[in-house]
């Protein structure tokens, strides 16, 4: 799915040229006003994008060549969740859903419909008019509506911003499954690193209408020089394989390039490939192994480099496993410790340390 | 002084000439002319319109004003006698007088609404007398007034019309098309009466004077010749004895 785009607008110039994988979730991240919404609108065809070229899964939707036709919005098999809910005010919640279902790219089976209703917890709201729904309820209807057109490309503009944590947690796995089972690519705009880390396979970082950085999400999110100020959300994304399931303690053992980690069991079967996130703030360092701690995960590592954090009290310590030094970006672990500890422990590049990892999140 | 005179629309053109002539002759007096259908003007007078005199297209409205004591009865005068003409914009259509009414060489015959306009009454009397009342029934279209009946014919939408001679007559001859002047015997005279309104008797003296002067001017040969040049007859022996009530005429159906 390669894109090329470049267009002028009153005072905002979107000038991007990128191609993203034809499946999986592409996260779009960037400060307010950086052009994320504009980008989605261009892809949807809602906005004239002169001098731009757009090809999706081999089909040309738009071309800068003179005389070339542009696929009109309603012919593009997309689903769009707008930043503001935008339900049809003349229809009830159910009417809004039926509107989408009737025009879906392929028939929506009753089970699928029921599942979506269930998931978004809409059963009590179906008869309500949009103006009598709360902000979060509106957004849930809007997400369900976009799913019901059975899109082949899903564009989501901060879809979960208005939702509470519990609902977010219900919906996120569904979105994951969605793109896994139906293999529809999703473009996902969000301000939440957690959501992005969890969902995105690929990441676009935007600033001032330009793509500042693009690449596989794990690599990009693991960089200590990640251009967006992540603070406590800084960490590494690792691919790992489940190798053991401990039903007594509800734990999983997963193996990544740098060793084994114990995780909370969230139902994965041995052999499954998972993605885990180790936040720098969750990693503490010791010079000798401490077997007496409540921390299960202790890995023998070697310090690769130490960089300053945005916070002057802290440093970022990048490490690689002692056993199997790794040269590419994979397998690194980053710890965020105080400068004082760095000094007290005498940490420096090349030193051997034990990394204690307090908690590890499976993001997929 | 300046006086305002309400005039039935069909008499608008001659009245402008008369007014101009009058102002020239009298020097000091001015006329303001307000045109309208007789029915409307009557209602306006009844509801306090500031008119000093009223030129109706018939006698009936004048009678009523006098009966209601809104007009000065002894000022009544028949200022013109209308003449009815059968006319077509097509110069070849009316070749043998009224015979054309018998055939189907026309689709519509325009007349004025007999309920509203004296020319309409005269037109119906004529058709009855010629025994075309039945045969033309489905083809008659009615103008609200005689001017509109004329427009129907002049625009060609109606091929024939029974209209006022004054509408096609200037300075002694028919201005165009083909026509047949309906003999006076086929309809009762179309008397158009004028009257001075009560308003004025209480009004300022210069307006009373102007009205009197105008009334005198109307009887002058100058005025008569203007009126006749528009295809009206004038009756030398005015005022006529008033006909007392509204003429009974069947509706145009």
């Amino acid at each position, binding site marked *: 799915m390669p894109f090329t785009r470049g267009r002028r607008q009153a005072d905002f110039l979107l000038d991007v040229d990128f191609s993203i994988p034809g499946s999986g979730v592409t996260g779009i991240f960037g400060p307010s006003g950086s052009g994320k919404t504009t980008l989605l609108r261009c892809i949807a065809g809602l906005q004239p994008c002169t001098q731009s070229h757009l090809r999706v899964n081999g089909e040309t939707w738009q071309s800068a060549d003179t005389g070339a036709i542009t696929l009109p919005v309603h012919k593009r098999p997309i689903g769009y969740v707008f930043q503001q809910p*935008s339900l049809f005010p003349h229809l009830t919640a159910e009417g809004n859903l039926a509107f989408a279902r009737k025009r879906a790219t392929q028939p929506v089976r009753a089970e699928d419909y029921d599942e979506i209703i269930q998931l978004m917890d809409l059963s009590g709201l179906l008869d309500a008019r949009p103006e009598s729904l709360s*902000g979060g309820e509106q957004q849930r209807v809007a997400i369900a509506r976009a799913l019901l057109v059975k899109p082949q490309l899903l564009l989501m503009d901060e879809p979960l911003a208005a939702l509470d944590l519990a609902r977010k947690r219900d919906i996120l796995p569904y979105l994951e499954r969605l793109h896994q089972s139906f293999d529809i690519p999703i473009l996902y705009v969000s301000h939440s690193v957690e959501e992005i880390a969890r969902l995105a396979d690929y990441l676009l970082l935007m600033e001032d209408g330009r793509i500042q950085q693009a690449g596989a999400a794990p690599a990009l999110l693991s960089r200590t020089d990640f251009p967006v100020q992540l603070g406590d959300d800084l960490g590494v994304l690792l691919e790992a394989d489940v190798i053991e399931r401990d039903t007594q303690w509800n734990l999983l053992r997963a193996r990544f390039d740098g060793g084994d980690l114990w995780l909370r069991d969230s139902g994965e079967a041995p052999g499954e490939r998972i993605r885990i996130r180790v936040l720098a703030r969750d990693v503490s360092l010791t010079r000798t192994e401490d077997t007496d701690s409540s921390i299960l995960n202790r890995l023998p590592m070697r310090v690769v480099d130490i960089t300053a954090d945005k916070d002057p009290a802290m440093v970022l310590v990048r490490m690689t496993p002692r056993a199997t030094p790794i040269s590419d970006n994979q397998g690194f672990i980053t710890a965020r410790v105080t400068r004082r500890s760095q000094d007290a422990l005498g940490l420096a590049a090349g030193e051997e340390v034990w990394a204690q990892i307090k908690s590890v999140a499976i993001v997929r | 002084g300046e006086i305002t005179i309400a005039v039935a629309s069909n008499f608008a053109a001659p009245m402008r000439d008369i007014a101009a002539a009058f102002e020239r002759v009298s020097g000091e007096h001015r006329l303001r002319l307000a045109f309208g259908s007789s029915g409307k003007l009557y*209602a306006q007078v009844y509801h306090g319109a500031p008119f000093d005199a009223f030129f109706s297209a018939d006698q009936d409205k004048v009678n009523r004003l006098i009966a209601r004591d809104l007009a000065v009865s002894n000022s009544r005068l028949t200022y013109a006698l209308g003449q009815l003409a059968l006319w077509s914009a097509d110069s070849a259509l009316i070749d043998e007088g009224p015979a054309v009414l018998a055939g189907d060489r026309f689709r519509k015959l325009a007349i004025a609404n007999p309920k509203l306009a004296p020319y309409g009454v005269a037109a119906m009397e004529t058709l009855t007398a010629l025994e075309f009342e039945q045969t033309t029934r489905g083809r008659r279209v009615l*103008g609200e007034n005689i001017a509109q009946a004329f427009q*129907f014919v002049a625009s060609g939408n109606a091929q024939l019309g029974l209209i006022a001679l004054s509408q096609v007559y200037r300075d002694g001859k028919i201005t165009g098309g083909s026509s047949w002047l309906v003999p006076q015997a086929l309809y009762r005279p179309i008397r158009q009466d004028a009257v001075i309104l009560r308003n004025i008797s209480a009004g300022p003296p210069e307006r009373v004077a102007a009205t009197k002067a105008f009334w005198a001017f109307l009887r002058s040969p100058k005025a008569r010749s203007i009126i006749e040049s528009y295809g009206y007859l004038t009756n030398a022996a005015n005022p006529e004895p008033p006909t007392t009530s509204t003429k009974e005429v069947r509706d145009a159906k």
Partner: protein
Amino acid sequence: MLSDNDLAAIWLTLKLATTVTLLLMILGTPLAYWLAKTRSWWKGPVSALVTLPLVLPPTVLGFYLLIFMGPQGPLGKLTESLGLGTLPFTFPGLVIASLLYSLPFVVQPIQNAIEAQGQRPAEVAATLRAGPWDSFWHVTLPLAKPGLITAAVLGFAHTVGEFGVILMIGGNIPGVTKVVSIQIYDHVEALEYTQAHWLSAAMLIFSFSVLLALYVLQRRKTAGGWRYGP
């Protein structure tokens, strides 16, 4: 009270006003939609043209229509060459004249209602795979409902009350072109005031009832929500 003539006139009026309103909605809605959405250079001139019939006195408009539709007029020549005869003094003629005369009252409210929606509903509809036609029917029109109702009310009422144009091209043929407004006018002109009063009162009461029912209905539909989103 009401004579047979009066009743025939009432019937004819309702027939005319209904026909004209229907046609106006059918013709005026696309025109209003085009005016609301277009960025074309023609928008201004067309808007002005639609409003123009308003500034001519109806009788004068009727006069020009009489010429235009008459045997010497361009439209008249056309209809005659098609073997349709000429339009004045016919019911279709009245309908055409009324269309022209009431068009601005129908176009303007609909255009405003569509413009007030903004682009968002149409954008949403397009992302939900509704084509322009689909979107027009199922989103734009339902959302413009208050405007459509206003348009229909103004169009209907204006046609019922229309007088000058019909007077001019109708020829006052009972059952064909003699509508209530002309019937009342005739009563007034003929000084038959009692009949004029009766007929006017009947018209007013009827119209008031229809309008009242419409407004109450419209209101019931839109009432309810005391609040406008969170």
